[in-house]
């Protein structure tokens, strides 16, 4: 009977959208570093930790008000305890365990085994309880029992909780844990030396009235202070034998420190690339809007060189480590990852909808660009996709892969050659306008409905007449270009005027069009 109730309740919770939503939100808040509100939660917890430590320190020499003590002992502890319980809750899905067991037993025509389910649930929960971070969490709740004075020291476990909320601290732990074996071996070595030297110094010095080392604790204290090269000097060996032990332990101490340093340094060196990559991914996830370029080559370099003038955030995805390194040395933001792999976008946490303005495919072959385009289209159907087209015959294939615009350098050179052949000056004029080197530029000015009168009047104003040429208006709705339209032309919202003028004059024209008065 109880088993049936448990199964029914598990099914009820499993199908409840409210329960799922609450559990998901709790998980996101506590564990998902991409969740936008997690940083606020982490910040609040860090604040509580510092407040606790501050109250502990202040309490040593000053009287604290009761309300502060109440806040520290009860409120903060309670918050930490609730957090602990929530973490315990989200650690595993108990309803799923019950349902799985029920379905398993049903399939084999056996009665539902509640005991087995409970055993699995408890096993999962104990995994959490005995994990290092959960134990720190639990110990951090201890100051709640403030009546036991010794338990107040547990407040320092709250400081250890910082590891949960600060990513860089977590990273430090992961780096050190990669050298766990080496560090443990070294610790064992140091421990053996301390034990041996403590016993030796005790035997040599304890019975000498001139020596301050009288107990085994004094001997251990002296050994620790000496082996770690601190040497306070409050305890010194006075016998020749004791001094020999001191010399041995000093030399060993230097070896221990050197080994420890080298182990930690090598751990950092080995993880340096990984750390950099993680940091880079973090930085990219914080960028608001950027262009994403897939593939690094000389063309990518040239494109970025130009795009940087108009937009500063450009992210490159390059799978070849050597090319990625080359791009990094140029100061670009490069993620060493395969742009054609879905896994890349999962790990780099690139949000197409929110972050990417457009994707530019500049890989070495049409095959690679098509493959990447299909991957990106799988993730996002709308993002504008631009690509280099290496072979003209592949145009249709790239188009089918979802690429919106293609640039074929071979075709461009062919078209330019024809223009240069019979209209070289005209070609130079357009080329110069595009580059804008001489100060004269060709610009787009976005128009709004109801602007017609002001727009055409401004064109005739002495400031702009003869100095600003309006080539025409591109109607966005019909995607047609009206060349040299007369003042009766009706401007619609979103239409774009194309003008040729000095850059500063263009900007002035834009300002006046949007209401600035002409002096």
């Amino acid at each position: 009977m109880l088993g049936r109730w448990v199964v029914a309740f598990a099914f009820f919770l499993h199908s409840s959208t409210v329960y799922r939503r609450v559990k998901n939100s709790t998980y996101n808040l506590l564990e998902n570093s991409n969740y936008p509100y997690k940083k606020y939660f982490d910040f609040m917890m860090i604040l509580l930790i510092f407040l606790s430590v501050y109250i502990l320190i202040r309490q040593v020499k000053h009287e604290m008000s009761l309300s502060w003590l109440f806040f520290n002992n009860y409120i903060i502890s309670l918050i930490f305890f609730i957090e602990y319980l929530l973490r315990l809750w989200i650690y595993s899905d108990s309803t799923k365990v019950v349902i799985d067991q029920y379905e398993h037993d049903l399939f084999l025509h056996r009665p539902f085994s509640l005991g087995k389910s409970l055993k699995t649930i408890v096993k999962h929960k104990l995994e959490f309880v005995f994990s290092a971070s959960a134990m720190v969490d639990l110990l951090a709740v201890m100051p709640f029992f403030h009546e036991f004075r010794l338990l107040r020291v547990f407040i320092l476990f709250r400081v250890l909780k910082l590891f949960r909320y600060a990513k860089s601290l977590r990273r430090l732990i992961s780096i050190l844990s990669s050298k766990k074996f080496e560090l443990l071996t070294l610790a064992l070595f140091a421990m053996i030396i301390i034990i041996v030297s403590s016993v030796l110094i005790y035997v040599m010095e304890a019975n000498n009235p001139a020596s301050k080392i009288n107990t085994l604790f004094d001997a251990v204290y002296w050994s620790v202070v000496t082996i770690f090269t601190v040497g306070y000097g409050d305890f010194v060996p006075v016998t020749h034998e004791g001094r020999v032990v001191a010399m041995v332990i000093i030399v060993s101490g230097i070896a221990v420190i050197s080994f420890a340093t080298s182990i930690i340094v090598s751990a950092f060196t080995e993880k340096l690339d990984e750390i950099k990559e993680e940091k880079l991914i973090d930085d990219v996830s914080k960028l608001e809007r950027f262009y994403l370029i897939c593939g690094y080559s000389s063309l990518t370099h040239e494109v970025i060189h130009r795009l940087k003038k108009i937009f500063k955030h450009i992210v490159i995805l390059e799978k070849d480590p050597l090319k990625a390194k080359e791009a990094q040395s140029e100061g670009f933001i490069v993620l060493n990852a395969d742009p054609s792999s879905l896994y890349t976008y999962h790990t780099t946490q690139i949000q197409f909808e929110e972050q990417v303005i457009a994707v530019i495919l500049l890989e070495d072959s049409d095959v690679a660009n098509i493959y990447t385009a299909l991957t990106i289209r799988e993730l996002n159907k709308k993002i504008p996709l631009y690509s280099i087209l290496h072979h003209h015959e592949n145009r249709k294939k790239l188009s089918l892969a979802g690429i919106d615009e293609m640039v074929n350098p071979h075709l461009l050179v062919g078209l330019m050659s024809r223009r240069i052949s019979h209209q070289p000056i005209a070609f130079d004029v357009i080329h110069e306008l595009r580059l804008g080197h001489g100060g004269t530029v060709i610009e787009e000015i976005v128009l709004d409905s109801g602007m017609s009168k002001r727009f055409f009047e401004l064109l005739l104003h002495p400031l702009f007449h003869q100095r600003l040429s309006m080539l025409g208006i591109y109607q966005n709705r019909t995607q047609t270009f009206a060349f040299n339209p007369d003042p009766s032309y009706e401007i619609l919202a979103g239409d774009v005027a194309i003008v040729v003028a000095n850059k500063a004059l263009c900007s002035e024209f834009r300002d006046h069009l949007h209401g600035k008065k002409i002096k």
Partner: protein
Amino acid sequence: MIARSAAVFGFNEYSQQIARHVRNIYQDFALFVMTKEEEKAAFEAGFLVELVDLSDDWSRIEEHFDVKSLIVFCALSNDSENVFLTISLRAQFAQLNIVALAQDNESATKMKSAGANKVLPSLEIAANVISDMLEKPIVTKVLHDVLYQDGLLNIIEIEVPRYSTFVGRHLHDIHFKSEYDVILLAIVDHEMGTTFSFASKGHNHHIDPHDVFVVIGYQDKLEALKLAVKRHHA
């Protein structure tokens, strides 16, 4: 002098595109290749080619073309060989109009030094178009149509003849937009040299014989302006 013949050197994707786009606008056209493999590949692609090498024997060019009205496209795959070809041609023919293709900016500078009249840096061209498409998509589309598509809108150069009715007038006296429905983009002042200045600079330029107008407009309007410019004083 207006070129009447064209020659393209090299056989690769670039030279094929150049050949396809220019061969119909010249009376004489030839494609020169450097190796037997290129010759075979060109033949298979439907091109009639002639095999030459980079030695100093250019008699074939002199026999086939009037060098003064010839435009040469140096489009070898290897930039260093292309520079060598350019400098060889320049050494032999001082008047020759040479357009050279360069893969990158570094080679483009060398091509210029080697004597090319015009250099097409392929990398820079592609990069410019990509960044233009992102920065000014509409301008890029319109200009691409004007320059490269055979649409109604076009950009042309009109040289002012010696006895044209335009000679002696000032630029601001001619209403290109309202009277001819075209837009004057730039003008080459014959007296000042061959470089152009943009009309939007606002200079009220005095029109002299052999000045060149660079105008944009519909084909029929451009033809009408051409006729008007060619009209002589009574």
